[in-house]
């Protein structure tokens, strides 16, 4: 399958990419790992007039920890997140989740910034980003701004990024003793997208009760969302097996979920409950260290 013709320009810095974006306007798209954009172009679902290749911008390809925060450059590949010692020790759930994205060949090229900007309703990183209360750094002509994950995901393939902006990095919390997180995913057997994926993060107080609970679900609805009912039901409680089981009986209403050839909305609602329970159990275990 052959995409529409387009103009190809390689940007060697963020500044250059931003200039090109403002010059070329709505017809321009950024190319990072290409594993969302190129398939869409081949199917002619996307036909940019200009493709700005940012994949060579080295500044965006590094991971570093700064105290309690883990900064991941927009061009860091899933493979690097999966295998990075820094990520494994600072925020292990991210490595575990990255290892479940697509397949090894996809992970060799796909990037965290690309996945978030594309905002596929069944992608994995949106659930992790929302659950872990991450921050997305967007850089535009007038500088950089930080977008909280709670404000970033707007809808299906829709984010809070403005025209002319690009994601430059994503910042996650370093998980310390007392906080644990886990990701549970039911993969589509062919595409490996999430039929449903649930990320959970739990912080325990001194007496072992939940002082904070965040649960984010991908694959189920038109966009990633937080399971606020579950979060509220567990906050302040001792997260024993019974409490988690009770809180995850009725996580999502099928009326809000997607139905397609892979799964009905009712089945997705069932998966939301089962996977939320499993993710919370593992998150609590991790929090107890």
């Amino acid at each position, binding site marked *: 399958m*052959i995409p529409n013709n387009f103009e*190809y320009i390689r940007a060697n810095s963020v500044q250059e990419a931003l200039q090109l974006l403002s010059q070329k306007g709505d017809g321009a798209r950024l190319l990072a790992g290409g594993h969302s954009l190129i398939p869409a172009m081949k199917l002619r679902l996307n036909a940019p007039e200009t493709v700005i290749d940012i994949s060579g911008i080295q500044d965006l390809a590094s991971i570093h920890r700064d105290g309690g925060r883990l900064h991941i450059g927009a061009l860091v590949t899933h493979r690097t997140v999966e295998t990075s010692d820094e990520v494994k020790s600072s925020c292990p759930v991210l490595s575990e989740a990255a290892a479940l994205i697509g397949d*090894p060949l996809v992970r060799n090229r796909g990037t965290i910034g690309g996945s978030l900007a594309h905002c596929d309703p069944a992608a994995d990183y949106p659930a992790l980003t929302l659950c872990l209360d991450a921050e997305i750094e967007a850089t535009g002509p007038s500088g950089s701004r930080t977008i909280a994950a709670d404000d970033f995901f707007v809808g299906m393939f829709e984010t809070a990024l403005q025209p002319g902006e690009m994601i430059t990095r994503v910042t996650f919390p370093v998980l310390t003793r007392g906080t644990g997180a886990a990701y549970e995913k039911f993969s589509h057997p062919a595409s490996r997208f999430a039929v449903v994926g649930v990320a959970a993060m739990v912080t325990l107080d001194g007496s072992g009760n939940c002082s904070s609970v965040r649960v984010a679900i991908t694959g189920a609805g038109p966009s990633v969302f937080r399971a606020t009912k579950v979060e509220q039901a567990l906050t302040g409680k001792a997260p024993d097996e019974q409490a988690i089981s009770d809180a995850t009986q009725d996580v999502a209403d099928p009326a809000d979920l997607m139905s397609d050839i892979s799964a009905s909305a009712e089945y997705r609602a069932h998966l939301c409950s089962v996977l939320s329970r499993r993710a919370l159990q593992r998150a609590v275990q991790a929090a107890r260290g």
Partner: protein
Amino acid sequence: MGHTIKVTVNGVTHEATVEPRMLLVQFLREVLMLTGTHIGCDTSQCGACTVLVDGVATKSCTMFAVQADGREITTIEGLAANGDLHPLQKAFWEEHGLQCGFCTPGVIISSYDFLKRNPNPTEEEIRHALEGNYCRCTGYQNIVKAVKKAAQSM
């Protein structure tokens, strides 16, 4: 508008002018006539088109040829040295790791990248490593055996 690119494929540097929309797999097959790299699904799933780009296994249907400018590509044609099959190729032959052979070049290239990172894999690790390569004939049993055998002889 055409872009002039310089790409090293299996050790030989080629210069060519390509349209931006030409995929790397088309460039390999239709310009360089290296037809060992196959097009299967053409939707970034099946892995038949896998090649090494600067040593990293990549689906060449999901990369533009213009992006390969200045890079080193290895295809299935580049694995044998001096007429001797690569240990992976030999193991696939000996273990009968193929039936129709359509997926084989991609499977071998993926396995090559994998064994470089993990020279002593378990069977489970091999199966996970090949999640991006579909075989519709063999049920994977002999493919896994072949990769295991190759690991022992490499």
